[in-house]
C-alpha cells in the first residue's frame, strides 16, 4: 500500500514520447523485432535502422543459448561482435560450459570427456574457474545428471542467465555509449533502490520497500 498522498503523484507530468521510447527500448533490447516494427508503424516513430538489423542476429544468438546450442551461439557472436569473447573470458567459459552440459545431458560421454580435456581443463589453471570446473566434471559421474547435486546447471534459468549476459555484452560492445539494461529495467531498479534507502533512513516513518508485484496489483 502506498503511504504517500496520491495527489502528489498527479503533479508529475509524464511525457508520452518518453514512455514510447521506454517501451521501444525494452522491445529492442529483448529482440522482439516483429513487435518492435509494428510498434514503430503504429506510433509513427522514427526507426533507428541499425537497431533492427542487429536485432535479428541478436535474437538468434539468444535463442541458441536458451536451447543449449552454445557452439552455434559462439559462432554467430564471433561474426557479429568479433573479439568480444576473447575479451570477456568469463562469458566464454560460461558458453563452453553450456556446450559441455549439453553433451552430458545428451549422454554423449565420450564427446563430453574429450571436449572437457581439450577446451575446459586448460582454463582450469585460473583459480576463479576451479570450483566451477569441479562442479562441471562431477556431472560426468551421474547417469542421471538431473538427479545430481548440480542439477541447477541443467535448468533453463541457468541458460537464461547466460543468454541475458551475452545479449547485454553484445549491446555494450556495439553501442558503447548506451546502457546495457533497457530503460524499463533501469527505472524499476531506480525505484527499488531509492525506496530501500528511504526505508533504511526513516525506518518506520518512511515508505515500505518497493515491490513490483505489489505495485502492479494496486
Amino acid at each position: 500500500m502506498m503511504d504517500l498522498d496520491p495527489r502528489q503523484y498527479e503533479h508529475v507530468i509524464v511525457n508520452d514520447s518518453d514512455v514510447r521510447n521506454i517501451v521501444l527500448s525494452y522491445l529492442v533490447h529483448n529482440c522482439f523485432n516483429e513487435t518492435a516494427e509494428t510498434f514503430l508503424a503504429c506510433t509513427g516513430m522514427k526507426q533507428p535502422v541499425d537497431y533492427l538489423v542487429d536485432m535479428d542476429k541478436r535474437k538468434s544468438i539468444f535463442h541458441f543459448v536458451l536451447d543449449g546450442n552454445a557452439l552455434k551461439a559462439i559462432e554467430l557472436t564471433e561474426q557479429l561482435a568479433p573479439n568480444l569473447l576473447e575479451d570477456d573470458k568469463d562469458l566464454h567459459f560460461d558458453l563452453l560450459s553450456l556446450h559441455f552440459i549439453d553433451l552430458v545431458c545428451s549422454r554423449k560421454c565420450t564427446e563430453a570427456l574429450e571436449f572437457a580435456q581439450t577446451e575446459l581443463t586448460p582454463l582450469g589453471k585460473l583459480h576463479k574457474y576451479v570450483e566451477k570446473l569441479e562442479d562441471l566434471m562431477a556431472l560426468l559421474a551421474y547417469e542421471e545428471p538431473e538427479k545430481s547435486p548440480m542439477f541447477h546447471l541443467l535448468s533453463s534459468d541457468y541458460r537464461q542467465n547466460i543468454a541475458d549476459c551475452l545479449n547485454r555484452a553484445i549491446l555494450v560492445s556495439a553501442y558503447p555509449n548506451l546502457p546495457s539494461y533497457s530503460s524499463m529495467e533501469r527505472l524499476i531498479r531506480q525505484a527499488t533502490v531509492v525506496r530501500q534507502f528511504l526505508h533504511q533512513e526513516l525506518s518506520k516513518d518512511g515508505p515500505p520497500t518497493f515491490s513490483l508485484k505489489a505495485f502492479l496489483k494496486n
Partner: protein
Amino acid sequence: MGGVEDDEPPSKRVKASTEDLRSPFDNSSRSVPISPLGGSMARPLLSQGKDDMIGSKGVIKKVEFVRIITKALYSLGYERSGAALEEESGICLHSSVVNLFRKQVLDGNWNESVLTLHKIGLSDESILKSASFLILERKFFELLEKDRVMDALKTLRSEITPLGIDKKRVHELSSCVVSPQQRLLLGFANLGIETSNSRLKLLEDLQKLFPPTVMIPERRLEHLVEQALSVQREACYLHNSLDNSLSLYTDHHCGKDQIPSCTVQVLQAHHDEVWFLQFSNNGKYLASSSNDRSVIIWEVHEDGELSLKHMLTGHQKPVLMVAWSPDDFQLLTSGMEEAVRRWDVRTGDCIHVYEKGGLGLISCGWFPDGRQIFSGATDKSTCLWDLDGKEVESWKGQRTTRTSDMAVTKDGRWIISICRETAILLVDREAKLEKLIEEDQTITSFSLSGDDNFLLLNLVNQEIHLWSIKDDPVCVTRYRGHKRSRFLIRSCFGGYKQAFIASGSEDSQVYIWHRGTGDLIKALPGHSGAVNCVSWNPADPHMLASASDDHTIRIWGLNRAHLKCKEAYSNGVADQCNGKGQ
C-alpha cells in the same frame, strides 16, 4: 579314596580341579590338590571338552585366543604353522567366505569380490556400502592406470555413484577422469608399480571397516602385549630404566637396584668446597663450580666415566652457580656478588663478561631461545641482557638471598622467581597474568621440572615441597629426611620421566625420594662433608652427581655386581629358546 594316586608319573597331565569344569574323562576324585607335585609343574592352561573359556580367571574366550595367535603366526610369515594351528585346533582364522573374499581382492577380481562381500553376512548396510565403495574405487583407479578411461567412467557412473555415499569423493573421482594432475593430487599416480602392496593395503582398509569377529584386525596380539607392558610399566613403583629393558618372561618390577646408589667415581680436582653442579641438557657434560673460584667442565664418556675437559678460571670470587645454554654449546657462570661470565664449552674460552656497574651479580640463567640471559643482583633487581651485553630490561624484586633463583619455562612464557622470603611469583609475559606460591617457611632455592608443570622448593625447615604450577598452584607432596640448618642445599628432579627427587644434605648424604608418594628410598653415604648440590643426568637415569664441601664430586651409579648377575640369568634363558626348533 581322595587325592591323586602317588605312583602317577609326573608327565601325565593333571586334570584341573576347579568345580566349574565338567570333564567326562575325569575318573579321579574332584578334590585334587592344586599342585600335587610340589609346585614345580605349571598348571595346565587348556581344558578338554567343550569349555570355551581359558586362563586362570576364565575371562579369555578360547576361540578368540586361538584365532589371534593364528593371525600373529601368519603376520610373522609362518604360513605352515598358521595352517597347522588352524587344522589342529579346528578353529578357522576366517570363514571360507571371508577367505574367498580376501583372495578375490588380492587377485583383483573386483566384481566377484563385491558379490562375495554381500554373502559374508554383514547386517550393517553402511559397512557394505563403504566396503563396496573402496573396492570399486580401486577398480576405477586400476582401469585409469591402464588407460581404459571409458571403462573407468562407466564404473564410476553405473557402480560407484549409485551407492549414494561420499558424494565429495565421487566428484573428486570424476575430475580424475578428466585430468591426470588430479590423480597425482589424490596420490594415486604410482598404482601400477606396487600393485600387490597396495592391494594388501586395500585389504587392511577393508578390515578396519568390518567388525573384528569377521576379520581379525592386524597385529592384535602385539597390541595386547604392548598394553600389558604399558600397564606393568605404569605400575612399576621404582621404575628407572629405559623402555627396551622390558621382558615378556616376567612381570616388570623394578627393585631399588635400578636407583643409582653406588659411588662409581670420585672427581677430585677442585681445591675447595664444591657448591654447585649441573649436567648439560644432552647429558654429555657436567659443570661444577667451587669456592676455589673455578668452574670445571667434565666430559661424560660412552662407558659412563667422567674426565676433566676444561678448568675455567677468571672469576675473582667463588662461583655460585652455572647455567647451560639450551643448545649446550655455552655455559654461564656467576661469581659471588661479582660478574657473570659466558664461556664456549668446546674451547674453554671466556667469550663475554657481564657486569652491572657497582652491583654484584649473584645468579644467572638463559632464556629458552638462547639469545638472552638474565641475572640477579645484590640490590634485589633482575637484569635481562642480550648476548652482546646490551641490557634489555631490568626490574626490581623484593627479595635477595645468597642466590636469587630464577627460571623461565621452555616456551619462554613464564618467568618464575622468588619475590619474597616465603613466596614465589610466576609471571606470564604474554597474558600479563601472575600466580603466587606462598609458603610458611623461607624458601631457600627451587628448581623447575622438565615439563614445566612442577616446582620443587627447598625450605628452611628441612622440608622439600613439590608444587604443581600448571593451573592454580597447589602443593602436592612433601619430602623429609635430609638435614639442612646453616647452608644452602639444593635438590633436583631426576630419573626415568623425572619420577624421583634427589637432594643434598648437611649430614654428608645424598637423599633420594619417590616423587609420587614422597617415600624416602635411599640415603647414600660417602661424602665427608655437607652435600650442597645434586644433579641427575637427563640422558641417563642411572647417573647422579653430587657436590660436597669435602672438595669432591661423587658420581653415583648402579651396583655393578648386581647387574652382571641379572644379565647372566636372562642370557641363559635366551640361549635355550634361540632359533627355530628342529
